[in-house]
């Protein structure tokens, strides 16, 4: 067995592999978060367009998916073009999404009866091209379906965002099953930002990057989306105690 220590040869091989994967012709553009710590952890410096990203909630958020939907809305708000939002349970309150920077004129909702409808609509939206992002709220995301979405996204360069929400908190262990998504996030709520007066400050989230292709897992304490859909790092040491207790009780 000969050991090759030639960096040029390795570079060449990498190029060839990239060419085979079809990424060479069109550099995959990325959508940065604008937060250096998060972008450094993502290959290419941001969430890649033309890829599938999966977002789930933690704790009670596994059922209502409130934080996950807002996180997805923030990403969609920073993309350009129309957004197709596929769902089965129409319980989104759009004023909140508008506060995350997503204008109501940009979003077309597509309400189906079953998860399969959502998958089919998402795939159609992704292969249409020309949309900024396609968001889908799904209970189950089997491997085959996720691969279809990933391939459709790769082909057209449209970003696919899947918000996972389950019927019961115990079903959220499903999130451990592998899918073909490029990144996988869990966004759970944290106690809000401390204010000098009584009241509720800016919402804070724990965004766990649980899986990323060609990258490593990480977790960030972030401030929730502002009026332009941007997040920021907002760690706070005063809640370490609470957070430890909360982590113990978390599902999955």
């Amino acid at each position, binding site marked *: 067995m000969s050991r090759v220590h030639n960096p040029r040869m390795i570079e060449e091989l990498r190029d060839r592999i990239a060419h085979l994967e079809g990424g060479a012709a069109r550099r995959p553009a990325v959508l940065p978060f604008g937060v250096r710590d998060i972008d450094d952890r993502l290959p290419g410096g941001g969430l890649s367009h033309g890829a599938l990203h999966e977002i789930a909630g933690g704790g009670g958020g596994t059922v209502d998916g409130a934080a996950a939907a807002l996180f997805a809305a923030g990403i969609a708000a920073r993309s350009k073009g129309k957004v197709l939002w596929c769902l089965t349970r129409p319980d989104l309150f759009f004023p909140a999404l508008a506060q995350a920077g997503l204008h*109501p004129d940009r979003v077309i909702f597509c309400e*189906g009866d079953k998860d399969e409808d959502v998958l089919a609509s998402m795939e159609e939206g992704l292969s249409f091209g020309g949309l900024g992002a396609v968001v889908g709220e799904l209970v189950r995301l089997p491997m085959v379906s996720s691969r279809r979405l990933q391939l459709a996204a790769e082909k057209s360069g449209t970003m696919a965002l899947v918000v996972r929400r389950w019927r019961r908190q115990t079903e959220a262990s499903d999130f451990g099953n592998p899918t073909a998504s490029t990144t996988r996030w869990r966004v759970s709520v944290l106690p809000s930002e401390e204010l000098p007066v009584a009241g509720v400050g800016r919402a804070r989230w724990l965004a766990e990057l649980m899986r990323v292709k060609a990258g490593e897992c990480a977790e960030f304490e972030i401030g929730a989306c502002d009026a332009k859909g941007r997040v920021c790092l907002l760690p706070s040491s005063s809640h370490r105690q609470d957070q430890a207790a909360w982590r113990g009780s978390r599902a999955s």
Partner: protein
Amino acid sequence: MPADQPLVVISKSGSKRWISAADTAARKLGLKLGMPASKAQAIVAGLAMIDADPAADAAALERLALWALRQYSPVVAVDGMDGIVMDTEGADHLQGGEDLLISGLVNGLRGRGLTARAAVADTWGAAHAITRLTSAGTTVVPVGGVAKAVTRLPIHCLRLSPDTIQGLRVMGVETVGELSAMPRAPLTLRYGPEVGRRLDQLFGRVAEPIEPLRTPELIEVARNFQEPIGAAETIAKYVRRLVGELTARLEQKGLGVRRSDLVIHRVDNTRQSIRAGLAKPVRDPARLSKLLCDRIEKIDPGFGIERMVLVAIMAEPLEERQVASSLVAEQVVDVTPLVDILGNRGQRLYRVTPVASDVPERSMRRIGPTDDETGATWAAKWPRPSRLLANPERIDVTALLPDQPPAVFTWRGKRRRVKRADGPERIFGEWWIRPREHAAVRDYFVVEDEAGERYWVYRAGDGVDADTGSHQWFLHGVFG
């Protein structure tokens, strides 16, 4: 003429004059169909009578059928003197299902001053009978439920000649159930084959194709096959060819299609149809054939297809527009092709737009996915939850009156201690929409529990005056 004056229509045959139609006011006074005109005049003084004009009636019915053809179904025909029959299969999804289709149809006709009854059933015969003999405005007979629905109906709903009906009555047969239980051979011997045929048509044992109504101005292309076709790829191939022919015809007239029907004739003399609706007039063959080919799987070719017809049922003028050069302005992506594809698959597509209302559940409204952009957004600066419960849920709360947020609340069996809270945000009832809300008040609070989960809760009432609400607490939304 005042609306409450009784009005009847008089038919004539020789010197005999009888009532062939009466309005509600006349029926209330005891006038019945078939009553001699002189008797009616004796019962009601000052009765308004007009002479029947069967030709004008038929023409009006045909106009109505044409309207239904454009609006509801690809296969529509006039049924007898007083009805319209249509094959809704393959077209009901555009109206949101069978229920919504027929209730929309009946309401639409009522809006134009016509009283109508409608029924959806597996067979023409059953729908014909049920529409004329049930009192309900709309009836939907479930698939396979025809036999149960018609057994108790009287036999005059069977579209038989009056002599036959009279003869059967003499024999003591009153209902369809009784008739269908009788041996077929003696019936045929005595009354001819018509009785058996109508019964079979009623129960769906014999096919009864509807010959669709057509007008000369409809643009229609057709193709006959010498050998019946059946494979999905072959169907797709010929759909594309038909679409090509149709778009060429449309181009000559400067039209674009809004609604097109593909009617498929099978070798066993049955028809199937697919209807594709479009949000804007279109003449692009690729888009149109994609819409139709998308639903080929819905076609059951049976023993083969011998004829395919493609009709532009609704066409609108379509001007060619110049696309702006992408050198200066950013090209705006037109999403109508995607909307058409998803809409024809039966997905509900919509956008939301703000409504000037402080009551959260009234603050947004659904609009069509391709409606003009309004540019409006919500003005509220206060945080809003990303999920709003359709029905606010009762919670058990410990809170100080009148304006303190809850200290502890129990929602869905889980007790939560409130760490931080904001509020109240007072929302008043909209008495100009509902008079009962004249004094109603809701006080909304944002509360956060120990784990950081944030909820939107409200108290019905202002905490002082019992007129403003019940002072019970509800959870209305979950913040992200």
